């Protein structure tokens, strides 16, 4: 199901590394061919016939910074350890002159106790100047026949530019992480435009959507029992809490609500900004039944900007009321923020259950000073750059991009279920670490043509446009 197998990566016996400066793609192709031949001969040993060479995909990762290149290499190598693949990492350095290609090829040999060895090759191309604007010409000669090609753009793809359009022509799918976009609000809308207007054979995947998988699973689980199915038609209120300020940080929340709305056939009526950064969206469900959704920015020190920290459902059906609350890392949320002063508010505002309003108020008060600072920074940047609030990042930030997402670690989802006034049922689930490689592997394993994502994306874009 979701566990990795016992495969041992070892140093290969054959000479399977190569590098060259100022080379052509033809040089790289020749080097790759030689490496494959050497590996086949070395592995065949006394056997007359070489082992078959499995390869399930080509993954092309485009990195614009040193940090992205390191991330690409780390994640793609981890993927190669689970799926025999050809990996091409392109470090695009358009501002450097003169235009040239430096290339390196490394290989990992994977040995299994019960199968023949597999060689996974990683080709790193550092391209300078205008060469990087012609990715298709750079990559196409290196692609093996008959396996899908995925283009993973680590930062913000150049939406609308010929460079991206050309690159997509040789790929089966584009993979991005909308939580890492430099200008998340604007870029997210551009992504939705690309997804809706591109050729139907082009898949589009978003790692941010995959991060929502555990939330979607937990919500779906609640409504799965037959006797609770009518609750789907009785939802009246939803609240989503997310970290960070500004509309650019509402992407994940909008995707989650877009998923609910598009799945259950809700039509958006209007959206309005409320107090304290809360946005209220009104939907009409079947029979014009109103559904009110509140998106709130709630500071959470341990979460990356835009990440969801809680979701609450309330409603009634069949004569029963219900409440579903899913909280992320409730124990960690109890910790006082370091810049507040340990325990100061806890002594003033006693807390009990994980979801008590008093505790939340205490947290919000505690974070107030920091919020003011953030808001001022936001408006200062807005004044300076003209970017809308929430897009408070320079176009090529060196530090903020790395900070936008923390290195993921294991999460806890606490589900609280109240039905008809009975005792609250608590259910704790531990979500495996969501490092980029795991997310990417999940996305690629299950395909990039996901109609649920596509329609959720469209609904989220409608919501984002309204707020």
């Amino acid at each position, binding site marked *: 199901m979701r*566990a990795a197998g016992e495969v041992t990566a070892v140093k290969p016996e054959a000479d399977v590394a190569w590098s060259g400066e100022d080379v052509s793609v033809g040089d790289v192709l020749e080097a790759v061919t030689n490496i494959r031949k050497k590996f086949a001969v070395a592995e065949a040993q006394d056997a007359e016939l070489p082992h078959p060479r499995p390869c399930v995909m080509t993954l092309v990762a485009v990195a614009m910074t040193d940090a992205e290149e390191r991330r690409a290499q780390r994640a793609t190598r981890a993927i190669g350890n689970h*799926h025999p693949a050809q990996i091409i990492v392109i470090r695009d350095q358009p501002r450097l002159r003169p235009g040239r290609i430096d290339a390196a090829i490394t290989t990992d040999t994977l040995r299994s106790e*019960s199968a023949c060895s597999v060689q996974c090759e990683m080709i790193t191309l550092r391209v300078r100047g205008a060469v990087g604007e012609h990715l298709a010409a750079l990559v196409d000669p290196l692609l093996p026949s008959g396996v899908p090609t995925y283009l993973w753009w680590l930062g913000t793809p150049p939406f609308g530019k010929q460079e991206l359009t050309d690159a997509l022509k040789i790929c089966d799918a584009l993979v991005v992480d909308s939580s890492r976009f430099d200008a998340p609000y604007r870029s997210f809308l551009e992504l939705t435009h690309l997804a809706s207007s591109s050729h139907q054979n082009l898949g589009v995947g978003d790692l941010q959507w995959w991060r929502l998988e555990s939330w979607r699973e*937990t919500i*779906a*689980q609640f409504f799965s*029992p037959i006797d609770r199915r009518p609750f789907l038609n009785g939802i009246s209120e939803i609240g989503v809490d997310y970290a960070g300020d500004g509309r650019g940080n509402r992407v994940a929340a909008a995707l989650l609500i877009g998923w609910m709305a598009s*799945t259950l056939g809700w039509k958006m009526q209007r959206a309005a900004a409320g107090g304290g950064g809360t946005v209220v969206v009104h939907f009409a469900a079947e029979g014009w039944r109103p559904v009110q959704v509140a998106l709130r920015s709630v500071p959470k020190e341990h979460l990356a900007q835009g990440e969801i920290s809680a979701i609450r459902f309330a409603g009634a059906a069949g004569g029963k009321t219900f409440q579903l609350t899913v909280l992320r890392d409730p124990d960690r949320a109890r910790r006082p923020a370091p810049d507040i002063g340990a325990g100061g508010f806890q002594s003033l505002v006693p807390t009990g259950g994980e979801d008590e309003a008093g505790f939340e108020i205490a947290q919000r008060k505690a974070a107030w000073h920091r919020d003011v600072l953030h808001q001022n920074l936001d408006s200062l940047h807005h004044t300076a750059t003209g970017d809308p609030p929430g897009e408070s990042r320079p176009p090529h930030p060196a530090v903020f991009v790395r900070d936008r997402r923390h290195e993921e670690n294991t999460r806890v989802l606490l589900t609280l279920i109240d039905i008809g006034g009975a005792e609250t049922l608590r259910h704790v689930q*531990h979500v495996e670490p969501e490092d980029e490689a795991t997310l990417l592997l999940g996305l690629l394993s299950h395909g990039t043509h996901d109609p649920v994502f596509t329609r959720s994306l469209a609904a989220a874009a409608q919501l984002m446009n309204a707020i």
Partner: protein
Amino acid sequence: MPTIAPNPLAEGLHDYRVGEPCLMVIFGATGDLAGRKLLPALYNLAKQRLLPAGFAVVGAAIDDLTDESFRKHASEKITEFSRTQPIDQRVLDAFLSACFYVKVDFSKLDEFKKLQSRLGELDTSRHVAGNRMFYCATPPPTYETIVEQLKAAGMASGAGFHRIVVEKPFGSDLKSARELTSILQRVFHEDSVYRIDHYLGKETVQNIVAFRFANSIFEPVWNANLIDHVQITVAEEIGVELRGAYYDKAGAMRDIVQNHALQLLALVAMEPPLAFEANTMRDEKVKVLRAIRPITDEQVAHSTIRGQYTKGWVLGEQVAGYREEKNVAPGSLTETFAALRLYVDNWRWANVPFYIRAGKRMPKRVTEIRIQFKRPPHITFGRDATRELDPNAITLRIQPEEGISLKFGAKVPSAGLKIRSVTMDFQYMTAFLVETPEAYERLLLDCMIGDPTLFTRADEVEAAWKLIDPIEAAWRDGRPALAMYAAGTWGPTAATKLLEQDGREWHRP
């Protein structure tokens, strides 16, 4: 039964297979099966977030334990036997908090009523809507008592679903299998009876169906026009170990052939089902089992082989003969090896022999199905050029090296014209590089979801016994004679002759 629309929110969720919340009562919760298989499988399901909110395990056994001491026991077993290591303590703690224990003497109705009362309390606090899953992790003779007590205590009816899971063997012959079915069906509807044959929960067994029916290139050749014969091998290198007492009564035929081997045959030979869905799948399997030509009393001697291992060498170690094993009668005539020649009398498989062999103390542990194709009708290249060319064959390897290989002819690179066999090999490990889940995880989950596709239905069990019973009867009369084979070999010489007389030979796995 009214059709319930699927949960719309589950659409597009990957690996989302979650059942309704229920209380799983494990009878024999302190026993070997529960400790080695069930509790670790449930822990791994929890780890994969496949247990719904409210799900709880209620252990029921004769031992005098409390909730806490049962949790401690469960923790130790999970730690020792879980396939995923190291144990995630937070997942384990959360899982154990949903484990409870009630001491139950199966002969006492009062204790079942206490169990019912406890389930009622949990039902309310855990919002499980009366859903129950009763797992008999106990010896088959206890099934009747448990089922009757469940009925008497009013535990097998009411709101929600009530499912019962029983382990193989499902009887020891047709008569006892029917009795067991009758006992179960007196209390539970057949749709609520889940007969576990863990072999069917293996990924690679399920892949037989995927291989055949998800690919258009194999189905046109999957018939008597092009297939010469089929070989099914289920070999174990181990002896009877601690199962001597049971095995000496069962033998290879009842232990392996009646269930595992015939299930594999059914999956290989079945017609395409309308969908991978419980009744359509099982309908097709039953049709195959019913189409197998019965081996008459006169045919038993030359269509079946029974063997027993003597001392020998296995995996470089000297091992004892069967009759020297613990809890085995010194003069035992129980077979540890069985080989059969079967025919499936339908249009697709007319006159194609299916050879089955299953045995203990063979050179290695291997389960595989070999589809041997006919030779080309005309040898274009002459005998000299094709001397080293074998007929085409597809091998479906179930364990241990899961995969599929295709054997075909290719020209040897040289100036002359020589054709020889080469193998195109697909290995699961090199394509997916992921660990396959334990069969019990899949099957427990299926039971919670209410999907009996991979469980054996009563008519399948009966069809298999109808085929086996006449063979067993002849064997009891000493026909054919028990053939001895040295441990570490591929069975008695008679098994080799079974194919030789048809102009064929066993494939060496």
